[in-house]
């Protein structure tokens, strides 16, 4: 069985540690991934802005790069949702029946990382150690489109040393929305301001999610306002073990300080 990592263009460029953590964690759980170097972008930004013909070209590229793999793992709910949710519509809009057939074949093999862990590998306790106060923002795509449900929470609660606190009004959008954050910067900023305030209310030192795009949004606001909350993809927490110890520069939870 061949397993590929689709790291996503955003993670590749801006959040390489997420990809590295995914490789490490999966290796620890007995899954070796390959990284097809020709991969680039899922086309989500194009699709969500209305450019279906360009999306179809990137869908074709995705099929060419990943067509030979049995499993394609994606550390992003929104990018990971593209093959199942958008590619068929994009293929239909350009009238490409061949592409339509190909994307229907590949879509079921694409797994968002969290559900791959809980559903395919059947694990919750992944041997992680993270002695910090953490809160979790369920991104809209992971909450509503991918319907991850309590999977991320089960994984987080099983982490040793963690002090997990629920985020108030967590189901509310952070205001990112891809090009919305630029086209409607004022509204996006107002939504994000409320989200950042809720994060601060938890007293958490780390904010986790399964989409770095949303974390980049919330983290950008927290940083602009001068609040030192770290944003981390969930997999970066799950990849850390006792050997790594606590994160540098982040307060350690009380029980763990004594150890």
């Amino acid at each position, binding site marked *: 069985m061949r397993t590929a990592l689709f790291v996503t*263009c955003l*993670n*590749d*460029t*801006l*959040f*390489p*540690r997420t*990809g*590295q953590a995914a*490789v490490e964690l999966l290796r620890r759980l007995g899954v070796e*991934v390959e*990284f097809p*170097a*020709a991969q*680039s*972008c899922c*086309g989500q930004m*194009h*699709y*969500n*802005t*209305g*450019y*279906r*013909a*360009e999306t179809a*070209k*990137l869908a*074709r*590229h995705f099929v060419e790069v990943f067509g030979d793999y049995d499993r394609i793992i994606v550390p992003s709910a929104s990018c990971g949702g593209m093959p199942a949710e958008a590619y068929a519509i994009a293929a239909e809009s350009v009238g490409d029946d061949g592409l339509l057939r190909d994307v229907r074949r590949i879509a079921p093999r694409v797994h968002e990382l969290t559900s791959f862990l809980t559903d395919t590998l059947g694990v919750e306790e992944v041997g992680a150690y993270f002695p910090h106060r953490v809160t979790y923002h369920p991104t*809209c795509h992971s909450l*509503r489109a991918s319907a991850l449900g309590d999977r991320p929470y089960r994984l987080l609660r099983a982490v040793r040393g963690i002090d997990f606190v629920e985020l108030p009004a967590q*189901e*509310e*959008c952070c*205001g990112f*929305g*891809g*090009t*919305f954050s*630029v*086209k*409607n*910067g*004022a*509204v*996006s*900023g*107002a*939504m*994000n*301001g409320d989200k950042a305030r809720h994060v601060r209310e938890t007293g958490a030192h780390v904010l986790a999610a399964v989409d770095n795009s949303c974390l*980049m*949004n919330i*983290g*950008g*606001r927290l*940083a*602009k306002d001068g609040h030192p909350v770290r944003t981390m993809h969930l997999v970066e927490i799950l990849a850390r073990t006792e050997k790594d110890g606590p994160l540098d520069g982040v307060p350690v939870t009380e029980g763990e300080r004594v150890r």
Partner: protein
Amino acid sequence: MSKVFLDWPAFPTAAERATKDEQLRANVRRATHTIRAKRGALAAERPDWQDLRDSAAAVKDEVLRHLDTYLEQLETKVREAGGVVHWAQDAEEANRIVTGLVQETGETEIVKVKSMLTEEIGLDAALEQAGISARETDLAAAIVQLGDDLPSHVVVPALHRNRTEIRDIFRREMGRHGRPAPDDLGDDPEELAEAARLHMRDKFLRAKVAVSGANFMIAETGTLVIVESEGNGRMCLTLPETLISVVGIEKVLPTWRDLEIFLQLLARNATGERMAPYTSSWTGTTDGDGPRTFHLVLVDNGRTRALADPVGRQALRCIRCGACMNICPVYERTGGHAYGSVYPGPIGAILNPLLKGPDDTQTASLPYASTLCGACNEVCPVCIRFTDVLLKLRSDVAEGDAEVKHPAEKAALKAVAGVMRHNPLWNAAVKSAGRAGAVLPTDMNLPGPLHGWTDSRTIPEIPAQSFRTWWKRTEGGTR
């Protein structure tokens, strides 16, 4: 002069202005959160909630598939019951018909039941031009009218006002249009309601003509149905001699059995009540009981245009409960006026482009007035997939028939996609991003349209080493 949404700025501009109005933000936030919580509790009370939603969507789809048949059946039944049926293709024709019907009666002051369609077609302004004063009798609609304001919500048109603002409007304006408010009027809700009751009672007792909309029309008997909270609608429907109902063609239901589904959904989803306090129905005219003359004006005004869109047509299932705007995080920050239409929020973002065509910059900006978070999908009583329709309409704007195009954006995204499919170029692009990261400060202000990001956020640090570089250097972390 009655206000209408005319020459409105595109959503980003209007919305930016709204986000800076702290009082507006507080009013909208308080109101939406209150209704949201009530709706949530009452929807959760029904174990068959999802079945009701599915059934409602199925009935509406059946109607939309055979709209011509049901409308002709309705027309026949209304005529048999003593009503007169008129057909209007657009707003102008509908306004002309209604104005003519009122003029025939010789009346110059009439009463109105709250109706979104008459707001949509700008009926009040058209009547005013003909020297006819149409007074709103729904409390919230009257607040909007007295304040020379525009509606900001389909169920609660004055949602953007708090009670102190309402007291000021009553004190200032009521006397100019009839019975004045007491000089010492306070902002207690009961006091405000009493002032409105006395002001309106005069009008009900004098009015010879009423104009209404309808929530539902039942084809099998030619019956119209209005659901409301205050009973003012029922006064309008029963006291005047002439009743003119102006209704969108998508409001028809096949049978009374179908109505049952919607009456269970509507009040719970709209106002968080188990049942609406007043549900009025009437069929044509009845001797010695209610209006002696009944006119039904059936209005298209873009509905067949929407029907022709295979994805967008589901928007015509809408029963105007307003739940999508109450749950919407964008609407919560902007209020309704930013959408430049009597239909704001998620339904406005899809319905306006479908009815009018996204051919002007304001209408074409509406499908982008959403983060695609999908909260509206979850609360819609007729299962409208807002996000699907928004995406479809965006593609109409970006690369379809819509006359508004964004050539610079298209060129940029096309160029990016080209690079992404070309491996050596993409590798080089990722690498150069890392080099740029070494010199770019994270707190810089980005130029051009990208300032929308840096106004309230830092830009992320670009790591010197991309994932692909790491993978190559360490052979996937094994070295």
